[in-house]
């Protein structure tokens, strides 16, 4: 019993470990990190980029449940947006819906000139005019919208069209109390609609010089709908925009845009493809807007050749040759496999190792946790799989 208890304690204390980074490289900068609990790292100024090499290992869960492939980027949309003026709202704007119960928000560009639901009348597809918000079964004033704490912009109001009004072409009209020169964005979310736009990119991470490939399709109950018109633009994390062209494809439209612009931007923030499509549903024009995010970064480094694993049979070290175009902080991460008694390769741990590299040929050294190796019962030969290189300065994946 005592043995079991001691064993379980040892296991529980060693499930996560930090590999001492004692390996050196001519291109590594800074002191090694030791994750000994007794050696607490002092707090550093938040603005300071990490300079120390750091390595960390932890056990891998069931490898058969894991998928390391690069995923597609995908969004679907049942919403659209319109930008209108106060004058347009006073004369009445078309609000087309494809399903009952649309949720509508109106946001004032200036954050002040809110249009309260009681200031609105609605002409239904059957010609009935409902005034002072009587067409709505949920009304949210600008003050209530702020109180809900969701972060909606000031000057935003909302309402839900009464389900009994059905769908079709509505006319939304504001009373004379609003300023003609004010500008508004109207968002219409059709929660109950079967008409859904799908934007799918072939992957979620792009590097400079690669081609962004996106398919745009609209489905209604699984059937592809005819898109009457479509337009889009790329938006960088700093708000810079780039025009793009859609080309008609078999059952929708597609984009093939070489990413030849500078990727220097906000680290980690995503670019977006903003798309607006018009289509006809039961003879009525319906709009859909969607924003597809993807990562875009400069290729600043590559794994230049195969990893070299050396060391004792219980304490391997892997050298990952990295060719860096620019000085920076780079990370390699991989799953270490060892050989079990039957001769089969067995996954043991996930290891991340990062170091600051100077431009040129260098290496990042991965040291693995001997306790995890011991627990797994494997020994040499070892191999690395799912090796990835990342640029932490850009917060970008350099290779999958």
């Amino acid at each position, binding site marked *: 019993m005592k043995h079991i208890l001691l064993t379980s304690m040892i296991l529980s204390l060693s499930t996560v470990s930090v590999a001492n980074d004692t390996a050196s490289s001519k291109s590594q900068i800074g002191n090694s990190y030791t994750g000994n609990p007794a050696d607490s790292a002092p707090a550093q100024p938040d603005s300071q980029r990490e300079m120390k090499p750091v390595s960390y290992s932890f056990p891998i869960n069931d490898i058969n449940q894991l998928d390391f492939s690069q995923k597609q980027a995908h969004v679907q949309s049942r919403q659209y947006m319109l930008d209108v003026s106060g004058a347009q709202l006073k004369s009445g704007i078309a609000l087309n819906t494809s399903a009952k119960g649309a949720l509508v*928000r109106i946001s004032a560009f200036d954050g002040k000139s809110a249009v309260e639901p009681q200031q609105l009348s609605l002409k239904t597809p059957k010609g009935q005019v409902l005034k002072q918000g009587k067409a709505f079964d949920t009304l949210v004033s600008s003050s209530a919208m702020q109180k809900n704490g969701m972060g909606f912009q000031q000057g935003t109001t909302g309402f839900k069209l009464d389900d009994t009004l059905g769908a079709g072409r509505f006319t939304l009209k504001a009373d004379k109390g609003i300023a003609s020169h004010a500008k508004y964005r109207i968002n219409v979310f059709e929660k109950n609609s079967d008409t859904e736009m799908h934007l799918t990119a072939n992957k979620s991470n792009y590097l400079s010089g690669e081609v962004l490939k996106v398919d745009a399709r609209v489905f209604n109950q699984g059937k592809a709908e005819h898109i009457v018109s479509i337009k889009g633009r790329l938006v960088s994390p700093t708000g810079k925009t780039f025009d793009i062209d859609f080309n008609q494809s078999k059952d929708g439209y597609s984009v093939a845009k070489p990413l030849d612009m500078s990727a220097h931007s906000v680290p980690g923030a995503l670019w977006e493809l903003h798309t607006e499509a018009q289509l006809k549903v039961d003879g009525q024009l319906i709009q859909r807007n969607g924003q597809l995010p993807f990562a875009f970064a400069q290729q600043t480094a590559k794994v230049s050749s195969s990893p070299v694993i050396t060391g004792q049979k219980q304490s391997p070290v892997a050298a990952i040759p990295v060719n860096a175009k620019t000085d920076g902080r780079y990370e390699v991460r991989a799953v270490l496999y060892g050989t079990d008694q039957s001769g089969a390769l067995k996954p043991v741990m996930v290891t991340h190792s990062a170091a600051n590299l100077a431009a040129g040929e260098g290496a990042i050294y991965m040291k693995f946790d001997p306790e995890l190796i011991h627990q797994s019962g494997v020994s040499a030969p070892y191999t690395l799989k799912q090796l990835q290189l990342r640029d932490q300065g850009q*917060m970008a994946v350099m290779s999958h």
Partner: protein
Amino acid sequence: MFRKVLLLIAALTFAGLSHANTGVAFVHGTGSQSDAYNDYWTGSFVQSVVSGLPNSSNYTVINCDFTQYMWTSGAAGCLAGQLTTFINQKNITSLTLITHSNGGNVARWIMSNPTWDSRYPNIINRIDEVIALAPSSAGTPLADAVIDGNVFESALGWLLGYKNDAVRMQQEAWMASYNANWLYGTSGRPALPKPFRSVVGTDVESAIWDGDSYCGGYSQNVGLEFTQNWLDSCSDGFLNCSSQNAAGSVWFYDTSKTYGDEPLSHAQSRRKCFGLDVFLRNRI
């Protein structure tokens, strides 16, 4: 002699365990906090929870700027700094993080990217578990709605207008990208190095005649009921259940444990509502 050495090792090991110094850190959600103890959690909630600690002074309430992206120095960097100070000052050897909402993402960032900052490994090693109250692990369609309706962006460029990168980050497709590339613990990804257990809120009650609606603030719950229209039938008014249970494992779904089988709205899952504080107290 050999037996004596073994006994000595065992005694030292037990002594070490008996002196495990347990601490709790409360990690707030989206927003920039300077007094999260009072403004975000409320003192009655915090004190009720920490009364379950062997040493009830072993807690810290994090105050960081979680309007920023989770990986920034103002978000995860700030959290790492405050946790490191807490660990060092109190000599904490077993740390429970109690996070709410986006605080779970910031904690997951640290556990998923241990080499980003040399303070991270020591923090991860001290963590016993993360109890993630209503974590926004897969984002929320409400973040998409907020960003879509943000006209400052199109009028002035978004750096000049509404600047809440944390909301932008919690759009569903953005979180899908971060979960696929930068965060662990979701389906198909490696498990996090330490347990991440969520409490999932499944509904919102805001009927004016229902006294339970007042726990956590009635006006907030009315707002939550409206925004529930953007969400699935199972949600806490801000997050779909499918987001709250997307990472790690589920500790419990609210009504399976709460007093009176009451659901925990997003505002209530950080307050002394329906026994939540007691469940946390008993767990730490």
